[in-house]
């Protein structure tokens, strides 16, 4: 059976994705830090789906370990989905570079380190899919979260280039740009219900887009149009706005 590797498997979106892929008869590697905390979730998934679900320890910030991590997997995955994300605190990051560094390294550097290694493997095998969860926050920097947003912008650019590179090898790269999602990360924020997706809906949309070999996915779909407008607001006006 073919495995899907899910990076950052503790997030709500990742867990919804894991369920979706297990339901569709994929075996899973769930990768996260202190992954033993996922044992009970993995067991539940295995009982429900009868698929093999393995937890594998991974520290996305420990880039030196990534090569060993990937090549130690008992069987190479057919696809990889990264749901790594660290929103951090914009206020803190503005004054404390350690926070800025952590935001950039978690959302960008760490993910790139791992995807570089996986891309090599997939390119040689001429197969596979890579799903990178970026964010609408990367489409235009705003004062409320531009450090997180800039890391996600870099990730979106990376995925775009990777897609371009791997096209000729038949490897699919899907960039996912979620808007608001009701998760632990956004708990406590006052989010408009019409613009907020449930993790299960995001997972369904990702599965469908990946199976159809799409390139870029906004979820909810409405965000595609919202971001189109936001991207086209003239900078002279945009800098005065509070959005």
């Amino acid at each position, binding site marked *: 059976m073919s495995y899907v590797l899910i990076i950052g498997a503790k997030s709500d979106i990742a867990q919804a994705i894991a369920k979706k892929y297990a339901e569709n008869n994929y075996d899973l590697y769930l990768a996260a830090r202190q992954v033993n905390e996922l044992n009970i979730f993995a*067991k*539940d998934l295995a009982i*429900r789906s009868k698929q093999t679900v393995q937890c594998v320890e991974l520290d996305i910030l420990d880039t030196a370990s990534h090569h060993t991590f990937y090549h130690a997997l008992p069987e190479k995955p057919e696809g990889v989905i990264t749901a790594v994300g660290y929103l951090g605190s914009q206020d803190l990051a503005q004054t404390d570079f350690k926070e800025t560094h952590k935001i950039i390294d978690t959302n960008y550097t760490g993910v790139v380190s791992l995807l570089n290694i996986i891309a090599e493997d997939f390119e040689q095998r001429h197969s596979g899919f890579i799903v990178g969860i970026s964010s609408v926050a990367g489409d235009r920097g705003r004062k409320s979260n531009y450090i997180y947003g800039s890391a996600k912008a870099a990730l979106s650019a990376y995925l775009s280039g990777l897609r371009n590179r791997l096209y000729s090898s038949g490897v699919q790269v899907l960039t996912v740009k979620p808007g608001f999602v009701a998760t632990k990360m956004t708990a406590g924020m006052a989010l408009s219900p019409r613009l907020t997706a449930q993790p299960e809906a995001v997972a369904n949309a990702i599965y469908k887009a990946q199976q159809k070999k799409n390139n870029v996915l906004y979820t909810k779909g409405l965000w595609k149009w919202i971001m189109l407008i936001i991207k086209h607001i003239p900078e002279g006006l945009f800098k005065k706005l509070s959005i």
Partner: protein
Amino acid sequence: MNLTSWGNYPLIENKAHPFTQVKDLEDILAHHEDLIPYGNGRSYGDSALSKHIIQVKPHNLFLDFNETTGQLHVQAGILLSEVLEVFVPRGWFLKITPGTKLITVGGAIASDVHGKNHHNAGCFSECVAFFNLMLPSGDIVTCSHTENTELFKATCGGMGLTGVILDASISLKRINSRYIKQTTIKTKNLKETFAAFERYQSEPYSVAWIDCLAKGKGLGKCLLMVGDFQADGDLNYHPKSNLNIPFNFPGFVLSKLTVKLFNWLYYGKVFKKISQQQVDIDTFFYPLDAIGHWNRIYGKKGFTQYQIILPKETSYEGLEAILSTISKSAKGSFLAVLKLYGKANNNYLSFPIEGYSLALDFKIEKGLFELLDQLDQRVIKYGGRIYLAKDARVSQAVFEQGYPQAETFRALRRQYQMHEKFNSLQSTRLGL
């Protein structure tokens, strides 16, 4: 948004406290009084309503399954429907299931639910190997038929008043088909109905739909449905997609006339005295689950389900008296459910005793509670009791006459200070 029970009556202000992790539950218990656990909100009355409600449904992982023995260990928020979706295709079914699959395992234990096979399989607690219970102190104890047996007997049927059931190990039974071979027996009156129940007692599953508005010599006429699983090896089970009642129906929709018409059509569509059908699991066990929010047909004032049981010796006389009172009142729902039960178990507040049980819905309207009080008196007179999982209004006196072990239950509540932490509207009304 306040949580409600299935009957949409009574309505009270409450605050929901959901938990996924046990440590979150410890926190909830440490900071609130007047708590009551709440599963999927399918108990009809006020047994799961209180100022502070512990929502157990998010605590819903499968923990372990033994493919050989069919022993399944789950967190208490797992729905019976989830168990079926996962395990029917693998040839397993619930040993005991009530008439809805949309309840949690924790709720099934707390109400010690029963189903169409009560006469030979007993209550839900029969299939429970053990469960873990969080007490008011935050301590977690394992309870089973052999370990902490007092707590086990109080918790099964204890309406959530002993603590929070965290997880449970239940045994499933082997099946070899998603179909049930059903026999429908049409009877003309109560006497025939009773005779039919006796005659078909060896069938694993049985239940009767009875026309509560029928009077005189037609009193007690019913369609008795009995059956058992087929053995054709077809386990290709997919839950049926749902119809949904999108809003509360206006009060006049359910009138004496429409109910009569429905009952006439329902009873009349079966022509033969005895007929046979092949029906699937959802049709046989969970006919009402196919209609989402069917409780809305009773309108925004809500409804209550009145379910009573009488000992076998007094059942005939008692049911005759109760049914004629109901049919004279011209209240009462589309269909009432009648069933012959097997032996009672030892749990302090479990509902079933050996005898006949009657259940029917009443929409909340003027004069209803007076009628139910009258019926209560008949139930008491014939040595019966009412079902707490359905109840929103019974008096403490009537309850106590029906449940001789109520005092044992109270004593245990005091011993563990449960009465200081866990209370529902119902427990307060009944002085539990």
